[in-house]
């Protein structure tokens, strides 16, 4: 496989910005399988980076490495000045500053919406309950479902659940938000409500890395699009670049399938 893959592409953040995530020479294996190959990526504060690529290309694994849900074997990952090493303190520090939204929502079914959101602020940030609830309600309001606070996740629709998940991540006050295919498990008619929230978030200046196939979202708020295939970054460019003039054959083949 490696003999056919060309040299990796660097995905450096535009000069002049302040890099909040820096990934250098990242390599990761699942057993013998080489999932991530020589990833070089940096993201500036306030930037929205959209990662696309066929399934199995390693894009989810890449962003899961950023908050250490996956352990990397080679290379450096630095988030907001903290390098991810085997030090539990560093890992906790990074996780506190990065929010993550999952494809399958992963709300805690035994807790109410409000408890889902306030759990981490109270336990990790040591906020008072009233303060945590106030912030939680602020973000619930922001994602448009203030009336669902005392319900259980099982009583909400998929779109509502994903918006709760976003509010849950935001209440911790993260500096970076990671989205792992946030709309892939949703019914088509509710995808819009989740994307709206994400667009609003991007426009407020949140640093975001979004793994998604929603090219509309990429075009609207994406600063850069990264195309990955077979564990490598194949092509980097603005959304317009990808829509109008993709360079690589693999990119063209992929885009022709999803657009």
């Amino acid at each position, binding site marked *: 496989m490696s003999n056919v893959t060309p040299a990796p592409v660097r995905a450096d953040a535009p000069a002049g910005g302040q890099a909040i995530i820096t990934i250098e020479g990242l390599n990761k294996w699942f057993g013998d399988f080489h999932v991530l190959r020589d990833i070089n990526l940096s993201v500036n504060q306030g930037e929205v980076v959209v990662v696309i690529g066929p399934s199995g290309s390693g894009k989810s694994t890449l962003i899961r490495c950023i908050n250490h849900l996956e352990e990397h074997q080679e290379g450096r990952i630095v988030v907001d000045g903290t390098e991810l090493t085997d030090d539990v303190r560093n890992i906790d520090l990074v996780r506190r500053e990065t929010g993550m939204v999952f494809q399958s929502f992963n709300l805690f079914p035994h807790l109410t919406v409000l408890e889902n959101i306030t*759990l*981490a602020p109270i336990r*990790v940030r040591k906020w008072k309950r009233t303060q945590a609830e106030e912030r939680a309600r602020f973000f619930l309001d922001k994602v448009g479902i203030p009336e669902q606070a005392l319900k259980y996740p099982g009583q909400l629709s998929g779109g509502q659940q994903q918006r709760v998940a976003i509010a849950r991540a935001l209440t911790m006050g993260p500096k970076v938000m990671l989205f792992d295919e946030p709309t892939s498990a949703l019914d088509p008619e509710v995808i819009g409500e989740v994307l709206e929230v994400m667009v609003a978030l991007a426009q407020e200046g949140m640093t975001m890395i979004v793994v998604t196939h929603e090219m509309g979202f990429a075009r609207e708020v994406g600063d850069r699009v990264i195309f990955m295939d077979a564990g490598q970054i194949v092509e980097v460019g603005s959304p317009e670049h990808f829509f109008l003039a993709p360079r690589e054959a693999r990119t063209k083949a992929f885009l022709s399938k999803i657009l």
Partner: protein
Amino acid sequence: MAVADRRPSVAPRIPFWRNVNTIGILAQVVFVAVILFGVVVLVTNTLNALGRANLPADFSWLGSRAGIPIAETPIPYTPNDPYWRALLIGFLNTLKIAGIGVVLASLIGIAVGVMRLASNWLVRSIATVYIELLRNIPLAVQIVFWYTAVLLPIPPRINNPVELPGGVYLSNVGLAFPFLYPTYRFGAWIPFLVVAVAAVVIGVLWRRRLARRSERPVRVWPLPLLAAVAIAGGGYYVASLDRTLPDGLAIDFTIDRGRGVVYRDVDGDGVRGPRDPVMPFASTIVRIAEAELTASTQNITESGGVVRSTFRFPMILGRDVEQAVVAFGDPDEAAERGLEIHFTRFPSRGVVFVDRDGDGAFTPGEEIDPATLTGFGGVRLVMTVFGYERHIVADRDGQVRTPAFSPSGTVRSAEVAPAENPFSVFGAAAATATRDDVVPLVADVELRPAGPLVLSRVHVPVSSYEGGMRLTVNYLALLLALVIYTSAFIGEIVRGGIQAVAKGQREAALALGLSASQTFSLVVFPQALRIVLPPVISQYLNLTKNSSLAPLAGYGELFVIATIVQNQTGASVPVALLLIASYLFISFAFAFVLNIVNDRLALVER
């Protein structure tokens, strides 16, 4: 409407033997008839057979004298009590083993289940071995193992029990530990307890209502529980305020025998008559200014054909006496033989030895006479005790026991001092006084006012435990086997439950910055609990039913006693029915309570 239109035109033409409705009813009628017939045949046959064999088929024998001695009785019982009471003891003993067994098995099971998923290889392997080993050995074998291979041979004899921290004693008789018992004052506390329970119920209902209406979450439990504790605590204080003893409360104590009975002098004649009821759990103090205890050296530990000479006085602890002096009963003879005393536990235990190597201290081996390889047996020792004072809580039968004392000064005490006394807490312990006059033995026995509860501590005055809560080795063996066996199954269930919680739950919690332990206790475990509960309930029921293997450990629970009752009365069918009913009752009670818990825990879905 469409259905109603079509039906009448078709229905009248079906013959009844092809009509689904008629077939259904007919089948049920036939089925019930067959069952009824079977029951009638069975019952009449059984009754006839029992009648012919002249065996009781009713329950009239329940009231006759049982005459069954039972070692472990949670409520007062003598062999003179009727059969129903013997069976009740058995039932309570079953509850005692099932109730405690279920709690312990759950705790160990959860720990083992969690350990099986540990990232540490050693921890994981230990848990795996624990589960695989214990799950695959039959329970009966395990009971026999714990009883005959561990608990009978390994703990020290009762005359030399191990004292564990907290006043807990372990020996081959069993485990004894301090326990709180209700006194005669307990009745005054009951109203407060009732109010406290009511406060919890009403408080929780009120807080629930509040929680439903309030926009903000309300903590339901803390306030009502706090109120209940305050009410119960205040009630305890109020109930303790009355420091008078109940009318006619008296103690009949014979100091020479070291025992007495607390009773209530109903007829007021100042003497304990047969109509005066005993008073359990009264608090007493026995004080003796000066008295003596005697003991002979005994050769009780034997190993490798060598018999050692140890002595032991009834267990007196340093805190019981102001001063204690142990000396030879016949100092002249002891001096002639060169005997000396070495304490292993001052002042009640030690060995008699001859200082052959002349180092002035006891060296192992010196307690044995090299000529005979036996100890210096039969040497009489006298312990003179000054300022003995012991606080004794009467047991369930009103019994108060102390070591048996004798009047002091009957024997000339000697100049032989302990050669070495590492446990001396009284400074110089050498006895030099020589007295020939006898001091008459006077005991000051006092009944003390008590609060609603009294702490009964364990004493070992003779070769048995007194006071506290006592568990026999039979009970411990059965409990250990049931708990360990069941915990292996619960461990596997817990492991499965934890693994059944979606992986994303753990990841989401970690991504939010929760630590590994927070993730487990706040997110994974609460969800695993919901998955685990139904199979665990069935393990609880298994444990309860498996307690009927008690005969293997000689523990007198329901099955054991029922078997004896059946042998004595021949009432095989009634006893079997009682047994079935009792086990069903326990199982249903368990299932009822835990199913409610299960429903309450269920996740809210759309």
